[in-house]
C-alpha cells in the first residue's frame, strides 16, 4: 500500500479543476491543428473521429477509477465526475460535428440514419444514456435523488460505454484491431463490475 498511499497523498492537494484543464487540452490541440491546416484533406472526418475517440477514452478512463482503487488502493474518486463530464463534452461535440458539419442538417438523412443504421443507433443509444448522467452530475441533483437512486441511475454508464464501443466496431469496414481492443476493454470493465457485485454480500 505504500506506493498507493504516496500517490494518494500527493494527489490530495490537487483540485478536480486540474482534470478539467487537462481534459480540454485535446480539444485545444484539435483547434490548433485546425488553424494550422493539420487535420489533413478531410478535416470534418478527422474531427468527427478524434472527438468520438476522446469521448470513448475518457469514458473508459472513468470506468477504470473504481477497479483501480480496489486493485491498487489508488483513489481517484474525487476526479471521476470531471472525467465523466469531459467524456460527455467530447461526445456532444462529436454528435454536433456529425449533425452540423458532416450531414449538415439534412434532417431526412439524419432521421434515416438514426433509425436504419445500426452503428448510428448504437452511437445514439450511448449518447442518450450519457445525457441523464451529465444532467444529474451536480451535488444538488445527487442530494435530490438520494444516493441509492443516483447510484442506480449512474450504472447507465456501463451500457453506454458498451454501446459506444459497439458503435466503433460496427462502423469500420473490415476488422481493424483498435475498435476490437476498445470493446474488449469495456467488456472487461463491465465484467469486473458484474463479478464484484455478485460477490458482494446481499
Amino acid at each position, binding site marked *: 500500500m505504500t506506493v498507493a498511499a504516496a500517490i494518494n497523498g500527493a494527489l490530495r492537494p490537487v483540485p478536480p479543476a486540474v482534470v478539467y484543464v487537462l481534459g480540454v487540452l485535446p480539444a485545444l490541440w484539435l483547434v490548433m491543428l485546425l488553424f494550422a491546416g493539420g487535420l489533413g484533406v478531410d478535416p470534418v472526418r478527422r474531427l468527427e473521429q478524434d472527438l468520438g475517440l476522446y469521448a470513448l477514452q475518457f469514458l473508459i478512463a472513468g470506468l477504470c477509477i473504481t477497479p483501480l482503487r480496489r486493485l491498487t488502493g489508488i483513489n481517484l474518486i474525487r476526479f471521476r465526475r470531471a472525467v465523466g463530464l469531459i467524456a460527455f463534452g467530447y461526445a456532444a461535440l462529436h454528435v454536433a460535428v456529425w449533425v452540423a458539419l458532416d450531414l449538415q442538417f*439534412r434532417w431526412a438523412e439524419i432521421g*434515416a440514419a438514426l433509425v436504419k443504421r445500426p452503428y448510428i443507433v448504437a452511437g445514439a443509444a450511448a449518447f442518450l444514456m450519457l445525457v441523464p448522467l451529465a444532467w444529474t452530475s451536480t451535488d444538488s441533483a445527487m442530494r435530490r435523488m438520494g444516493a441509492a437512486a443516483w447510484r442506480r441511475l449512474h450504472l447507465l454508464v456501463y451500457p453506454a460505454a458498451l454501446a459506444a464501443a459497439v458503435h466503433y466496431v460496427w462502423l469500420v469496414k473490415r476488422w481493424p484491431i483498435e475498435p476490437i481492443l476498445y470493446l474488449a476493454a469495456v467488456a472487461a470493465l463491465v465484467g469486473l463490475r458484474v463479478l464484484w457485485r455478485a460477490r458482494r454480500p446481499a
Partner: protein
Amino acid sequence: MRHPRKTDPTWADVTPKPLWLNRRALIAGAAALAAAGPAAARLPKGRFSTDEAPNSWDDITSYNNFYEFGLDKGDPKRNAQRLTTDPWSIVIDGLVDRPGTYDLADVLKDQPLEERIYRFRCVEAWSMVIPWVGFELQGLLNRVGVQPGAKYVAFETLLRPDEMPGVARRVLDWPYREGLRLDEAMHPLTILATGLYSEPMPKQNGAPIRLVVPWKYGFKSIKSIIRITLTETQPFTSWNDAAPREYGFYSNVNPEVSHPRWSQASERRIGDGLFGRRRDTLMFNGYGDEVAGLYAGMDLRANY
C-alpha cells in the same frame, strides 16, 4: 516533391508524345523538365472530362484506400514508396487471341494517352475530381483480341508481401481482385490510367497502371494491375467476397441504394474544407447519359 499546380508546365507539356509510350523516358522526361520550356504536344483533354475543378495533388495523393499498404488513409502515402514498379509486366490471359506476359511498355504501345478529368466517388460517401492520364481499356482488349466466349474481365493487383506491409493481416483475401462485365470494360469511359496531373501515377494511387471506372464506387477501380483475364463466368471480386451483402459485383454509384450501414444519398467532396457543402450523389456518378443503357431492364436494387 514539389506539388504541380495547374499552371505549371509539366513534363507532359514538354515531352514529345512518342516518349510517353516508354516509361523510362517518362521518368527521364520529368528530369528534363527543369531544362526545357513549354513546348508542343500538350495532352489532349479527353472527351467525357468534367469542367469541375480537380482536387489538389495533395488531396489525391494523401487520402487513399490501398489496404495493401495499411488501413489508414494516410498509410498508402507513407508505406507505398518502396514499391518496385519497374520492371512491370501484366499477364493477359483467358479468352484472348494473344495471351501472354506483356511488359508495361508493350501494354502502352500505340494506346493514345489523354487526360480524363473524372469524378471519383468512394463507397464511403466521399468524392474527388481527379485529372487522370490514361487510355481506353477497350484499346488494349481489342489489341489482344477478345474471343467470342468472353463475358467478363477479371483484374488482379500485385501481391508482394515484402513491399506491402498491409497484407500481413488478412483484411481481404489477397491478392486484391476486381472485375467488370465485358461491355462495361469496353465502354469508352473505362480507362487504364498511368498518371494523374500529367505526372506518372504515384505509388499510393496504384502505380504504374490502374483501372478507372468513374460510374462505379472507387474500389472497383483496381490499382497496380498485374493480371487481366477474360472469362466466361463472373469473376471473384474482393469486397464482394468479404461482405457480399454490402458490396455487390456491379457497385454502380446509386444514391437510391444504401450501403447497409450508411446512406449513399449524398457525399462530401474532399478538399472543400470544414464548411464545404455536402452534395447530392448522382446516379451513375453523373455518367448516366453514357452508361445507363448498359443496365437497361436490370433491377439495380437486386444487382447493387
